[in-house]
């Protein structure tokens, strides 16, 4: 009853091909975006901005990247963390070499470096798939981690081996995590994430995205129908790594402020994979829900003992959090293997008919 598309007629192809053909979806999305751009900056304090909203959006972007590869193209990857690292280190080099260029342009360019590395490590996908491919992406993860330590040129030969944001400015305003206003950073991250997600949703609907899904569903049939696996798979690797790279660059320059190899280790790869699986493979909105769940839940868990004054120390709580997240992931996989995206779909279906049993 809340979600009926009755009476919404499509009279031309343009309407038929709209991303959100249903009016309620358009209104809902409009409200969410308006709230994200206007409401959140007004309501949230610095803590919320710095520790929840900004990282949540960055992780969501990385999850979109991985979902393109794993969810839409069916190529399992465990190297997301390293691809984020490539973006971050590339952006750091760009900023130090061309300090006068707008940092946002650097973000977008650094993604291309990640895409290049992604294509390189995506090459084995032309010969193998499934778990074997997952292991080759592990090779990418460990090899790149090693490069971040052993190639001092990447971090400008400094002693700490870390990269840090060199007080970038945008339109004269400082936007680095140390001195900038979190609201400015939030708005930059939000704009980039919304823009890239919009691009992704269009690419996925288009010819390229369809070729990915064909390869995912049945590669031989796809080949017979004229899809070239070389282009389809490598373009998926490129686009996925591009997104991860931009997310990594933003992670250093708009959230952490400085980063070293540990910021891009294998656990980050797992984290993003959890987000994608819990959110739902092959769903963009799922990426956001998964990122929120996986990222915010531990924060709430850690805050709980202080909230209730239970005398549990932080280390114990950390371990209990790990137990709970592990069990939740297993429970989620058993109860709803298709993730939040499917739950959302079921909810929409229910809203459509409610209060009547049948539509």
């Amino acid at each position, binding site marked *: 009853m809340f979600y009926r598309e009755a009476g919404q007629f499509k009279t031309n192809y343009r309407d038929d091909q709209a991303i959100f053909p249903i009016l309620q979806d358009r209104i809902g999305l409009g409200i969410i975006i308006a709230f994200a751009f206007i409401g959140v900056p007004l309501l949230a304090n610095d803590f919320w901005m710095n520790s929840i909203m900004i990282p949540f959006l960055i992780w969501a972007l990385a999850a979109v990247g991985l979902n393109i590869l794993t969810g839409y193209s069916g190529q399992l990857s465990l190297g997301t963390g390293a691809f984020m690292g490539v973006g971050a280190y590339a952006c750091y080099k760009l900023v130090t070499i061309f300090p006068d260029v707008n940092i946002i342009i650097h973000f977008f360019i650094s993604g291309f470096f990640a895409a290049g590395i992604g294509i390189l490590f995506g090459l084995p996908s032309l010969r193998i798939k499934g778990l074997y491919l997952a*292991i*080759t992406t592990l090779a990418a993860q460990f090899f790149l981690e090693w490069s971040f330590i*052993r190639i001092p040129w990447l971090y400008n030969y400094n002693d700490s081996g870390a990269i840090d944001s060199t007080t970038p400015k945008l339109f004269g305003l400082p936007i680095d995590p140390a001195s900038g206003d979190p609201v400015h950073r939030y708005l930059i991250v939000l704009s980039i994430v919304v823009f890239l997600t919009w691009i992704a949703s269009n690419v996925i609907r288009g010819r390229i995205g369809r070729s990915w899904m064909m390869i995912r569903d049945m590669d031989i049939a796809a080949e017979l129908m004229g899809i070239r696996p070389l282009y389809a798979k490598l373009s998926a690797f490129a686009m996925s790594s591009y997104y991860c790279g931009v997310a990594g660059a933003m992670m250093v320059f708009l959230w952490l402020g400085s980063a070293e190899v540990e910021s891009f280790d294998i656990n980050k790869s797992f984290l993003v994979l959890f987000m994608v699986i819990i959110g739902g493979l092959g769903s963009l909105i799922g990426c956001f829900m998964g990122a929120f769940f996986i990222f915010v839940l531990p924060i709430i868990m850690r805050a709980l003992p202080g909230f209730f004054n239970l005398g549990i120390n932080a280390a114990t709580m950390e371990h209990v959090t790990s137990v709970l997240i592990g069990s939740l*992931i297993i429970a989620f996989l058993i109860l709803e293997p298709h993730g939040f995206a499917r739950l959302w779909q079921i909810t929409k279906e229910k809203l459509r008919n409610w209060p009547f049993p049948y539509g």
Partner: protein
Amino acid sequence: MLHDIFINPFVDMASAPDFFVQLIWEGFVAGTLYALIALGFVLIYKASGVFNFAQGIMVVFAALTMVGLHALGIPAWIALFLTLGVMAILAIGIERVVLRPLVGQHDAILLMATIGLTLFLKGVGETVFGGEPKSMITEELGLPTGVTDFDILGGLVSLQHLDIAAVVIASLMVIALAIFFSKTRIGRALRAVADDHNAALSVGISLNQIWAIVWFAAGVVALVTGIMWGARSDVSFALEIIAFKALAVLILGGFTSIPGAIVGGLIIGIGEKLAEVYWGGLVGGGVEAWFAYVLALIFLLFRPQGLFGEKIIERV
């Protein structure tokens, strides 16, 4: 540059053969442990098609449980058997709670479930026993700790007794497993399940029971690995990263082959030691961190089924 790659390392090897032999031995022992972890993977993968990411943490968990029980004042040998009991309960629990509801799901989902299991076991282990590294109860278990020096090849080659014991125990366990697989009724059932689930079901083999047994077998392998590894270094969660190397071992040896796991483990163990010492200097060291994976990557391009794997691997 080419001189450094193709000539100098071999000159070094020839000029100090005792050091070379020592390195091979160290690599051999490390390789044995990689092979043991890989063995746990293979057991489970063969029987249920589940890629068990949690094998590494099972090793840590088993070792921690044993050390923790001993710390409570339980004699070492009883602690060993109690730990076996814990691993059995864990195996049955995993089969009941995790695997049974997930039968027939996509590979990635099962993989994720074992990653979830990894987090769970890690959290439980840290909560119950604490996260700090612990030393293994080597002497209480009666493991030898001395060193024997051999005066050969114009130098000293020293073998830790513990390493010798590790190799002997690992070999004994592999032989025991081989006998178990080929001679016992359960072993035959396990092989039947590995060959064809449906056919095995149709002749009355209970898949659930077999899975629980296989996970328990992997748990036993994990315990032995944990004792050996713990005795060489410490029992700590850092072992988890080392367990990832077993994945590269699997690529080399094939996902379903026990001999493959052993040979692959030894190749990687010895190979990475030699690469680190003789070629590592060229790229700034630390080659050990990725040697295994890059070797696996190259291997995949030429022989995706691994050294001993089944021929039918789905290639694109």
